[in-house]
């Protein structure tokens, strides 16, 4: 397999960044990491994953949809869409890579969301296999193998070198563009690393978490569960879980008057927020219990019901780390699976 020694990785980043925008996970001052636009001297974070998910690249927190010029009774619609520029995201983990498949099911199904599609077509995803999963990881529950990440190019590290495998035409193009920096390498040590990671995966505290009790045909059973009251009792109704989640994709559309015209933008929204379903004459989800239930029913029941059994979670563990009251999908699954 083609590889590059880890010392030379920054040279590869530099070569890529000369041709197109490159994003890599980089450390912040507080020890967390986030995707940053690559600049000379930047190094790849050693953290397992970024604090925010990679969904921002295709579904940013806010984006402009259209502009309007209003003059008297007249309205003019201005289509502000532009072809995106090519970019590369390096170091995406297997869980986040799978989240794109899930987001695709929403945004690329008819009618196609052209804003999302535009970015998706211009982005090259270079994934990186995990070697040291955390206690909060449960991607295996959703059939994800962190040693075999998807993406346009898959990468592995054996501690000395990074190995590259293109998975499609876009990935091949990426590998070709840096081929003079790559050399053929022996994967014996890499295979060992993968085997070790798999052993660790089996020992993770959430290794046995199962989706068996969930899916489209469990709709009424779970909806009517009496456990929602206790599970949701201390929920703050904030949007942390939603916003750090790589698969949450609910959005709001709003108008903003700039003084020179109207901008119609969309922004992430959260089903946990009290105004999410609020109408002029009432709200169908008035209590936090109902809002809390909606979020987990969507991921564990409604989404698989509409998408051939695929769950709306990738087990990245961000909500486990970030929920202010440590209530999360794992606790919900464990509570609901007990009949």
């Amino acid at each position, binding site marked *: 397999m083609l590889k590059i020694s880890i010392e030379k990785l920054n040279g590869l980043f530099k070569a890529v960044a000369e041709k197109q925008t490159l994003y890599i996970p980089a450390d912040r001052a507080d020890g967390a990491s986030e995707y940053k636009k690559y600049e000379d001297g930047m190094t790849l974070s050693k953290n397992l994953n970024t604090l925010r998910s990679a969904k921002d690249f295709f579904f940013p927190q806010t984006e402009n949809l259209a502009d309007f010029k209003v003059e008297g009774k007249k*309205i003019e619609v201005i289509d502000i869409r532009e072809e995106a520029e090519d970019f590369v995201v390096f170091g995406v983990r297997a869980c986040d890579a799978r989240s794109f498949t899930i987001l695709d099911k929403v945004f690329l199904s008819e*009618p196609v*969301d052209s804003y999302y599609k535009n970015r998706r077509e211009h982005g090259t995803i270079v994934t990186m296999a995990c070697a040291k999963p955390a206690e909060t990881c449960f991607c295996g529950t959703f059939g994800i193998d962190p040693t075999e990440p998807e993406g346009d190019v898959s990468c592995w590290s054996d501690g000395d070198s990074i190995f590259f495998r293109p998975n499609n035409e876009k990935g091949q193009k990426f590998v070709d563009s840096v081929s003079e920096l790559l050399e053929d390498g022996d994967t014996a040590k890499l295979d060992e690393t993968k085997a070790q990671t798999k052993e660790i995966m089996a020992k993770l505290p959430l290794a046995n978490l199962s989706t068996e009790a969930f899916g489209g045909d469990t709709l009424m059973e779970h909806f009517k569960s009496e456990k929602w009251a206790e599970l949701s009792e201390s929920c703050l109704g904030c949007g942390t879980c939603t916003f750090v989640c790589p698969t949450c994709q609910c959005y709001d*559309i709003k108008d903003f008057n700039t003084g020179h015209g109207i901008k119609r933008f969309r922004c992430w929204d959260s089903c946990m927020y009290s105004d999410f379903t*609020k109408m002029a004459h009432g709200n169908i989800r008035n209590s936090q219990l109902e809002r809390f239930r909606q979020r987990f029913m969507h991921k564990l*029941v409604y989404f698989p019901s509409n998408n051939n059994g695929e769950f709306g979670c990738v087990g990245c563990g961000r909500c486990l780390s970030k929920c202010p009251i440590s209530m999360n999908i794992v606790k919900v699954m464990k509570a609901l699976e007990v009949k």
Partner: protein
Amino acid sequence: MNANDTLIPYIGVVTDIREDTPDVKTFRVNAIAPDGTVGGKVFEHMPGQCAMLSVPGVGEGMFSITSSPTNKEFMEFSIKKCGCLTTWLHAMEVGQQITLRGPYGNHFPVETDLKGKDLLFIAGGIGLAPLRSVINYVRDNRANYGDVQIIYGSRSKDDLVDYQEIINEWCNDDGITVNLTIDREQEGWDGHVGFVPNYVKELNPSLSKTVLICGPPIMIKFTLAGLKELGFTETQVYTTMELRMKCAVGKCGRCNIGDKYVCKDGPVFRFDQLDELPDEY
């Protein structure tokens, strides 16, 4: 990037405003051709489908298209004043442009399940708006349907939407029975007085009819219970739903009832379909 995106709306112009009731107005909307000519429809639709109307800077909302697809000249929307956007719409004058996108959602099965059937329309208040599209579609394709009965009620005579059209056109059509009712006695009203659910039971409609019902949730609830008492089954009764919507294409995530999105899988549901879903509406 040239492909249209459903989130980018068309422009329409309001060419007529009819004051139906103190809080309901019906807006006639026409398309504007690139050369500025006003006329025709912004898009085609089927009875029961909806459109997103907006006034940039004020907001966007989902409204059922009140006019029948058989009307080739314009679209109409009957809108009740209840929130920020609808208040703005009510203040509009003829000639005002608005944005439209659609059509969205499914529609009443006028070309399939309803064909050849005796139809019973039951509406309360502004609930007549989505049914009016079906009623006029049926009137324009009269040979395809059996008996038509319309039971319509509102708080008072002044709150009956489309009253002139009902009296002048529907009531004069052969094979259409119109039964109007208002909640309380009122001077100048010699028709029926009483709530819709009770009136339906009193009228005891034939079980051969397929029912299309729309109105306030409480009216629907009691009418459905009454229909069941009379012997109707849930597979005979259709309704149309309304929830908060933003995208109108099943992506923004808020208008679901269980795994069904009202904007995409609805707004028209048969009651046996709703039975399989949580009662979160």
